[in-house]
C-alpha cells in the first residue's frame, strides 16, 4: 500500500542504478533527515542531546567504520576502540600543537592517522583470517591502550594522564569544550556523520565495495578472478580505520570532553562490535538501528520508572536495564540472525507486495 512500486518505471540505466530506486525509500530518508536536521534540534533538551542524539550518532559512525571492515570485507576486528583512541589522541595533539587549526578539519584529518595505524595492524590479515585475525587486532587493542598510558607526550605530560578538550571556536562560535552548546556540537556531529555515511554508501556500492564483498565471500575465488587481495584488504582497513578514527575524535571532542586511556579498552570495542552485529553486518543502515538499541534504549529505559512514578531504587533500575537489554539482544538475534537491517529489509519486501503474500 504505502510501498507500492507499481508505476515507477525506470527509463535509463542511471535511474535503475540510483541510490534509491524506489521512491518511497527516498521519501522516508527525507523525512528522517528532516527530523534529524530540523525537528530534533528544535525540540530536544540538553539531556536528549547529551545522552541520546550525539552518542547515538557517534556510535553509529564507529560501527559503520567497523562494518566496512567486518561486514563488507569480512575481516574480523577487535581493535575498534584502539583505533578510535588513535583518532582522538591525534586530534588532541593537533589541536594543542596548532591551536589555530579549524577543529572540524582537525577531526576529519585525525582519521588519517588512525588509517595509517589501521593499515599497519591490518598487514597480518594478508596471511591469517577469521579468529586468528581477531587475535592479531586484539594485539593492536592492548598495544595502543598501553601506548596511550605510557607515552606522556600524547597527553602533554598531564599529571593525571587524561586528555581534556580545550575550548575551540570557529569564527567565534564554540564547537568543542565546556563552553560549546549542545546544539552546535550536535550539528557538527550530524554534518560529519552524514558526509561519511554518504561516502561509505557510495564506496560500498562501487568498484571498491565489490572487491571487498568478493574478498569476504570467498577470497580464493576473488583472487582467481583477478582481485588483488592485498589491495582489497588493506583499503578496507584504511577506510574502516579512517571512519573509526573520526568517530573517536568526535567521541572525545564533541561528546565526552575528556578521556583517559582505559576508555579505549576492550569493552568499547565489544560494544561497537555488538552494535554492528545486532544492526546487521554488511549494511549501512543497520549501524544506526544497532546504536539506537544498544546506546539509546538503556537511557530511555532508565527514565521509564521515574516517568511512571514507580518508586524503585536506581541500582535496581540498572540491574533491570541490563537484563532487559540483554534479553532484547538475544530476542532480536533469534528472530533475525542477520540483524535489525535484515528485519527491516523483510518488512519492506512484505510491504511492497502487500496485500498479496507472494
Amino acid at each position, binding site marked *: 500500500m504505502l510501498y507500492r512500486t507499481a508505476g515507477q518505471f525506470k527509463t535509463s540505466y542511471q535511474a535503475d542504478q540510483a541510490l534509491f530506486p524506489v521512491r518511497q525509500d527516498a521519501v522516508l530518508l527525507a523525512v528522517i533527515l528532516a527530523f534529524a536536521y530540523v525537528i530534533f534540534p528544535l525540540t530536544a533538551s540538553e539531556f536528549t542531546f547529551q545522552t541520546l542524539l550525539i552518542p547515538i550518532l557517534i556510535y553509529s559512525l564507529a560501527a559503520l567504520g567497523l562494518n566496512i571492515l567486518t561486514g563488507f570485507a569480512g575481516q574480523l576486528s577487535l581493535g575498534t576502540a584502539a583505533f578510535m583512541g588513535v583518532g582522538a589522541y591525534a586530534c588532541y595533539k593537533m589541536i594543542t600543537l596548532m591551536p589555530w587549526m579549524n577543529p572540524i578539519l582537525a577531526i576529519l584529518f585525525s582519521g588519517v592517522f588512525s588509517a595509517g595505524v589501521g593499515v599497519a595492524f591490518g598487514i597480518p590479515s594478508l596471511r591469517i583470517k577469521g579468529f586468528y585475525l581477531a587475535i592479531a587486532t586484539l594485539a593492536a587493542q592492548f598495544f595502543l591502550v598501553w601506548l596511550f598510558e605510557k607515552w606522556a607526550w600524547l597527553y602533554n605530560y598531564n599529571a*593525571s594522564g*587524561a586528555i581534556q578538550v580545550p575550548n575551540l571556536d570557529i569564527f567565534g562560535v564554540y564547537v568543542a569544550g565546556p563552553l560549546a552548546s549542545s546544539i552546535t556540537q550536535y550539528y557538527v556531529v550530524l554534518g560529519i556523520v552524514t558526509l561519511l555515511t554518504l561516502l561509505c554508501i557510495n564506496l560500498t556500492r562501487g568498484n571498491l565495495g565489490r572487491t571487498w564483498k568478493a574478498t569476504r565471500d570467498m577470497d580464493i575465488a576473488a583472487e582467481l578472478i583477478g582481485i588483488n587481495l592485498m589491495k582489497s584488504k588493506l583499503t578496507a582497513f584504511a577506510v574502516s580505520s579512517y571512519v573509526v578514527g573520526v568517530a573517536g575524535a568526535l567521541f572525545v571532542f564533541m561528546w565526552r570532553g575528556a578521556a583517559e586511556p582505559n576508555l579505549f579498552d576492550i569493552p568499547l570495542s565489544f560494544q561497537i562490535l555488538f552494535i554492528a552485529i545486532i544492526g546487521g553486518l554488511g549494511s549501512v543502515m543497520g549501524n544506526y538501528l544497532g546504536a539506537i538499541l544498544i546506546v539509546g534504549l538503556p537511557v530511555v529505559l532508565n527514565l521509564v520508572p521515574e516517568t511512571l512514578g514507580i518508586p524503585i531504587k536506581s541500582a535496581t533500575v*540498572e540491574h533491570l536495564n541490563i537484563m532487559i537489554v540483554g534479553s532484547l539482544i538475544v530476542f532480536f538475534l533469534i528472530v533475525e540472525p542477520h540483524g535489525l537491517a535484515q528485519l527491516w529489509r523483510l518488512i519492506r519486501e512484505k510491504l511492497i507486495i502487500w496485500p498479496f503474500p507472494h
Partner: protein
Amino acid sequence: MKNFAKLAAAAVVASITAGAALAEGLYTPNLAYRTGPFAATGIPLMNGQKDYIEMLNARDGGVGGVKIEFEECETGYSTQKGVECYEKTKGEAIVTQPWSTGITLQVLPKTNVDMIPILAPGYGFSPMMDGKTFQWAFNVPSGYWDGASMILQYLQGQGDLKGKKIAFLHLDHPYGKEPLPLLEANADTMGYELLPIPVGLKEMQNQSAQWLQIRRARPDYVVMWGWGAMNAGAITEAVKTKYPMENMIGVWWSGHDADLRLVGDKGKGYKSISWSFPELESQAMADIKKHVVDTGKTLSNEEEMQGVFYGRGVVMSMILAEGIKVAQDKYGVAEVNAEQLRWGLENLNITEERLAELGMSGMVAPFSTSCSNHTGHSGGWMLEWDGTKFVKVSDHLSPDTSGYADLAATKAAEYAEANAPWPVNDSCGG
C-alpha cells in the same frame, strides 16, 4: 473520546504534580555506584551518606526545616553513565557528587557554565584546593596531596627518610597518579628514593608481577594508592610474599574493613591514612540507629556500619548538610539554590564545638574553607588494622600545605590556561 480526554487530563495532572514534587525541597543527587566492579567499596560509603541524610530528615525534618531530597543515580563507576546522570539531574540539583575521578574530570569544566558546585570529599583533582581557579569545586576536607604529605610526615616520625626506599604501588589511572608530583618533589628534599609501581586496571586482581618487583627491590615502605579490587589484591599478595605489614601504608580509599577481614590477623599492622574515623559511640551514630536503622529504612547492616567507609559516608553528608546550613543562615532562605550553596561550602567552619554539637566529635578533624581554600586541609589520623578493626595509632597529623601551595597554584594555572577562557576569581584574598 470521552475516555481519552479523561486520560489526557490525568496525564497532565500527573505531570504537574510530578514536576512540583521535584521542585520541592533541596535536591542533592548522588552519582552512586552500587553495581559494577567497584560496588563493594561503593556501597558502604553510599549507605553512610544516605543514612545520615535520612536521619536528618527524620529527626530535624531536614536542614533548616526543609527536607533534603537525596536521590541516587546509578553510574556503575562508568564515566558515560555518570555524565548521563549529571545531565539528567543538573536542572534541579543544587550540588553534584560525582564520585569518580573520571566523572569529576568530565564534569569539572562544565561547572563554570552550569553553575552547580561539585562536592568531592577526599577525591578528585588535588589542585582543586585552589578556590580562585576552581570556584565551583570542593574536595573537602583533604585532598590527595594532603594525604601524601601526611603519610610522609608519619614516616618521618618513624625515623629519618634519608636513604630509604619507598615503593609507590598505585592504580595506573588518573586517581593513582594524583600524588606522584608531590612524592617526586619531596624525594629530593627528604632524600628518599621513590619507586613508582603502577598496577594496570586489568592486573588489579593479579599483582604477582608487581610484588615480585617489590620483593626484589626490598623497599623500606610500600605506599599504596589503590581502589576497588586492587586493595584486596595487594593486601593478599603482601601477606603471601610475607612483606612486613607494618611498613605498608594506604591512602584513605585503601582502608576498607572488608578487604582486611579477608586476611584477618595476618593483616595486623597494615596502616591507612584517614581523615575520618568511625566513632561508634557518637551521638550521630546513635541517632542514625534510632531514626534510620530501627525504622528499617537503612540498606546497611550491623557489620558494615562499624566500618571506616560507612563512617566516612556519614561525614561526607554532614559536610553537605553544614554547607546547606551555612548558606541558609547567610541568605535567610530555607530553600537555597546552587549558587548560594556554593557560598555555603566556601565558608564552612567546622570547629571542635560544632562537631560536638553535631554529635560527631572525633569522626573528622576540625577544618574551615575560604574562597581561596576549597579543601580545608583538616588533616587526619593514621589508622592501623589490629586484626579485627581499624584503630587510631597516631595523634592528629596536619599536612604541610606550604610545601605544595606553589605546585597547586601552577597546576591550577595550567588547567585554567588549557581550558581558556576560564574565569579566575582574583577578588578573593586569603
